[in-house]
């Protein structure tokens, strides 16, 4: 770093003393020029750190031990360390806990010659144990008598592993916010050490590392994994990783093992909650998260901003822009300094500069909104601001829409139905730009609350039309969810005509859509595929039935050799790994005796899956029938079953599938999903005439 006069000025650990000194430099240069001076930058960031902690917390911290002052003298004059601390994730606000952790690490290890290399690591640990999303759990684990998770031990652990070359090379480049996904794992320090020693894989295999642990719901002692005793007989004898590896677990334990194994090698990772499941994600590079066990989407358990994969993507965009974030932190700190000094206009200008430096930073945007609320803006001004948010956030529209919803009442409450529908249409157009995320339900989270704000049935029909038109041009999943909402909200309430009108108008109005009514079949095909992508049983069923007059003729009759039980697949949904030479309107027929057709692309392992709503406790069996033509394409095949949609158990396998393959399930076999896979030596098409499921 460039040295300049005054760079080593000692900085008082007292905000009241620091502020006048900083303010006295006003006019000595432009803010940007001042930011270029190490002494100014240190002082400004130091002021911000002390301000965030709060004066009472800092006073208490200083009173605890004389070492606090010694530590602060070093920390507050180190702009890189201050930057690492301020950019470590969720703001460490209203507490000196983060400073206390840094003090502990600095007192124990600050004198080591390579300590400067590990300031980002120390900052990440300080964040995770004080403000991070799992800070409470980590604080509890800190005090455990056996297998604790202690900040200083964790610092030493990663520092020592790095020194020994036992971490992935990416570790050395990670900043504090990224290191949070390494050090913030909740298993004990000894579990991390054990995993570093015993779970060594190439980076590419860590998304599958969960499978080192046997999937097992009941222990050898007969205790269920859904209770506290499953691993308890060994939990005082061995760390969590050893315990899981030796005694098995289910999705939560498997994913935690895989994630912690990666983290133990310095690779950022997170477990992620999904409905009835826990999956995982491993980060291969900045912005490149790869899922394991059904990840990376859902609700990540480590984050800067809570949410789904869209919020992880936003974090990558904001925090991954090192230069932008640097400027934003400095401008934000300056804004706080000036506001505290009563210079509101200058503070607002500094905040605007911070937002300009990092326009997608949610904390800055929330601060900006808070300031705007103090100014009593008019409805049109708020509407224009909301509009600008949608535009500026580009593909990160989910967080932008969430921000907009916080201010919607300020410009929408006085609006009539037409005005509201016009705004909601913009929301859906923005939502359609977002990357695919099954965890963001455009219907439940957007359409449903929007519809509640409308007063007439006609307005709700218009809303559905706008939403369908927007999502028809977007990703398939959201389109399917909107369709499902339309089916549930209108068709199932006897307003099928309104749904039909909205659907037809949306198809006609959608970008690139052909208004020719003859193209309705194509639109229905897309809608059915979207319903399948959204895994929406009601939308799939309703659309398939609505499209019945357009369905091609059923295949020639065939005497079926059905398994025992009653057919339950005719109320189900079917979907394939891909679609080619395929008529989605014929999918529904596959689930019943009349037959239909479903056709994938040529793939090594194409699959076709059926989901029975609610599942069955006693599966009768499955009948799979090949299409009339090209029957040679299906040879080695297998059928698996699942009750959670993520964990699959084999049901049957055939080296040479017959035309009709009847599988009888063992008594008491539970299933909700049934997956048919072709195991091809080289890519091949997969197509079925029937996929019938029975239950006893």
């Amino acid at each position, binding site marked *: 770093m460039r040295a300049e006069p005054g760079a080593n000025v000692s900085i008082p650990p007292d905000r009241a003393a620091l502020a006048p000194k900083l303010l006295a430099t006003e006019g000595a240069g432009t803010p940007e020029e001042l930011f270029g001076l190490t002494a100014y930058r240190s002082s400004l960031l130091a002021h911000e750190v002390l301000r965030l902690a709060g004066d009472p917390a800092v006073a208490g911290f200083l009173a605890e031990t004389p070492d606090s002052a010694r530590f602060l003298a070093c920390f507050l004059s180190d702009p890189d360390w201050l930057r690492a601390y301020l950019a470590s994730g969720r703001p460490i606000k209203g507490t000196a806990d983060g400073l206390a952790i840094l003090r502990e690490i600095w007192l124990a290890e600050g004198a080591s010659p390579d300590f400067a290399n590990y300031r980002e690591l120390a900052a990440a640990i300080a964040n995770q144990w004080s403000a991070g999303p799992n800070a409470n759990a980590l604080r509890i684990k800190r005090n455990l008598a056996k297998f604790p998770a202690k900040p200083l031990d964790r610092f030493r652990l990663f520092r020592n592993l790095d020194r020994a070359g036992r*971490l992935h090379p990416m570790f050395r480049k990670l900043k504090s916010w990224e290191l949070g996904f390494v050090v913030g794992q909740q298993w004990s320090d000894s579990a991390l050490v054990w995993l570093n020693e015993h779970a*060594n894989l*190439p980076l590419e*295999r860590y998304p*599958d590392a969960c*499978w080192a642990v046997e999937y097992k719901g009941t222990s*050898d002692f007969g205790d269920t994994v859904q209770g506290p005793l499953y691993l*308890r007989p060994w939990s005082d004898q061995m760390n969590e990783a050893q315990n899981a590896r030796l005694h*098995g677990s289910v999705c939560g334990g498997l994913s935690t093992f895989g994630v912690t194994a990666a983290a133990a090698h310095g690779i950022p990772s997170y477990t992620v909650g999904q409905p009835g499941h826990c999956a995982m994600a491993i980060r291969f590079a900045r912005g490149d998260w790869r899922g394991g066990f059904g990840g990376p989407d859902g609700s990540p358990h480590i984050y800067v901003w809570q949410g789904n994969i869209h919020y992880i*993507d936003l974090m990558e965009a904001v925090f991954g822009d090192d230069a932008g974030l640097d400027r934003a932190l400095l401008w934000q700190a300056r804004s706080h300094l000036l506001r505290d000094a009563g210079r509101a206009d200058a503070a607002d200008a500094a905040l605007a500069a911070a937002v300009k430096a990092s326009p997608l930073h949610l904390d800055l945007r929330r601060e900006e909104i808070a300031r705007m609320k103090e100014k009593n803006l008019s409805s049109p001004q708020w509407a224009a601001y909301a509009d600008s948010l949608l535009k500026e956030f580009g593909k990160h529209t989910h967080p932008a829409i969430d921000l907009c919803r916080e201010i919607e009442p300020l410009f929408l409450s006085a609006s009539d139905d037409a005005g509201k529908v016009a705004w909601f249409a913009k929301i859906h157009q923005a939502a359609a730009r977002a990357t695919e995320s099954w965890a963001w339900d455009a219907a439940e989270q957007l359409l449903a609350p929007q519809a509640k704000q409308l007063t007439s049935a006609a307005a709700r029909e218009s809303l559905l039309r706008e939403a369908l038109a927007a999502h028809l041009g977007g990703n398939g999943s959201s389109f399917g969810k909107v369709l499902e909402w339309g089916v549930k909200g209108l068709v199932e309430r006897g307003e099928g005509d309104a749904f039909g009108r909205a659907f037809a108008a949306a198809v006609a109005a959608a970008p690139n859509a052909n208004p020719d009514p003859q193209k309705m079949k194509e639109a229905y095909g897309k809608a059915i595929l979207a319903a399948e992508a959204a895994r929406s049983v009601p939308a799939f069923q309703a659309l398939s039935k609505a499209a019945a007059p357009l369905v091609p003729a059923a295949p020639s009759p065939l005497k079926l050799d059905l398994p025992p039980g009653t057919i339950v697949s005719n109320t189900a949904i079917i979907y394939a790994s891909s679609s080619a030479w395929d008529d989605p309107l014929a999918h529904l027929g596959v689930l019943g005796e009349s037959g239909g057709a479903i056709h994938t692309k040529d793939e090594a392992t194409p699959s076709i899956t059926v989901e029975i709503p609610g599942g069955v406790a006693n599966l009768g069996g499955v009948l799979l029938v090949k299409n009339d033509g090209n029957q040679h394409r299906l040879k080695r095949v297998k059928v698996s079953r699942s009750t959670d949609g993520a964990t699959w158990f084999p049901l049957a396998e055939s080296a040479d599938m017959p035309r009709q393959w009847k599988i009888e399930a063992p008594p008491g076999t539970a299933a909700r999903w049934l997956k048919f896979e072709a195991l091809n030596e080289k890519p091949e098409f997969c197509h079925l005439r029937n996929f019938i499921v029975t239950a006893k």
Partner: protein
Amino acid sequence: MIPVPAMIRTLLLLLAYPLAAIAAPAGFGTYQDVRAAAKAGPSDFVVFYAGPDWRPETAGVVRALEAPGGRGALSRLTGWASLTAVDLTEENLKKLPERPDFSPYDLPALALADADGRTFAVAEGLTAATLPQALKALAAAIPVRERRDALFEKAKSAKGVGSAKLYGQGLDQLPFRFSAARKDILTEIKKADPDDASGYTFKYTFSAGGFHESVTEKMIAEKKHAELFSLVDRHLRNPVLLPAQRQALLAAKMQAYRSLDDIPKAVATLREIIRIDPQSEMGVGAVQYIRLLTEPVRLAGLEWESGDNRPTWLPMVADVSAKVAEPGTYQIEFRHRDGHTRFRKAALKSGGRQIATDSNPNESNKFTLTVPQSAKGRPIELWVESQGTGWFAGRGEIVVTKEK
């Protein structure tokens, strides 16, 4: 960020970590070629699972294997294949006509497979220092595999239960994890011995977790304890079971006794599990299980943690001498921070003698206890019956207040 197609991303990744492609020892063949040659032989072959490339150990193992005589005790085998980080991606594994049946999670690793590609011995987490010993151990598995195959051959010409026993003895030669995967042999055993007089079908289809889920839990729920005991006893008479399988069967009895609240018999059953093999996973676990069912929980201070919760009512003991030093009436509150722990019947004890009690039939978290004059200045312990609930998340602090 500009979206990068998956293929380009993989390519960039490979460029970023170029060692990934060169971590295989020189002179090793591809998995596909070596396996085909072994089948034609027929002969055993070795698979080297390379990586991870940044670990110092990996390069050491590769160098050791490349050195003259580096293949040690396995040098007489000619088929040596390597699978690198790139080969081991799911995408590339799918391309193999026959993929390896073993997936190690601690690399570098070596696996020994028979001519049919079935793994029968492995060594994981290798270093240059552990390699010679690992090679010896793998080589020692070859005559065992030969014995196994000889028994299988003998079994083919035998009939009925005799044939099943020979197949079973063949399976018994190698570690259970590999033998349990031999569904082809299991089919032969079932064919030869449909009533399982040999016990081998049960042995090689038994899953402890599966047994507890489909039998133990169900029979306990249906109050068929006697039937469960008799079923377990019948299985325990199977002479070919592994110690771990016997222990798991006994655990079914232990759970049945627990469900009847007969803790002494549950503990006696756990002691049987320990007797079978005290050093085994179940043996070690049973010692801890007995503690969980019988021993008072002694707190280090005036706080309890989730680990202090127990599945059954047991005393929780805390030294409260400093807080109840003076005679008088005290309110003692178990203030939760998380979860819920149940509390009932509290007592103060001094010198092993009870000096105050509160029966607390409604399981309140607050107790009122009076310290008599006679206890003044003596060490005093709080004994309270407690039981965990749910996930045993209950934790908190014990707050002692003297009434005015």
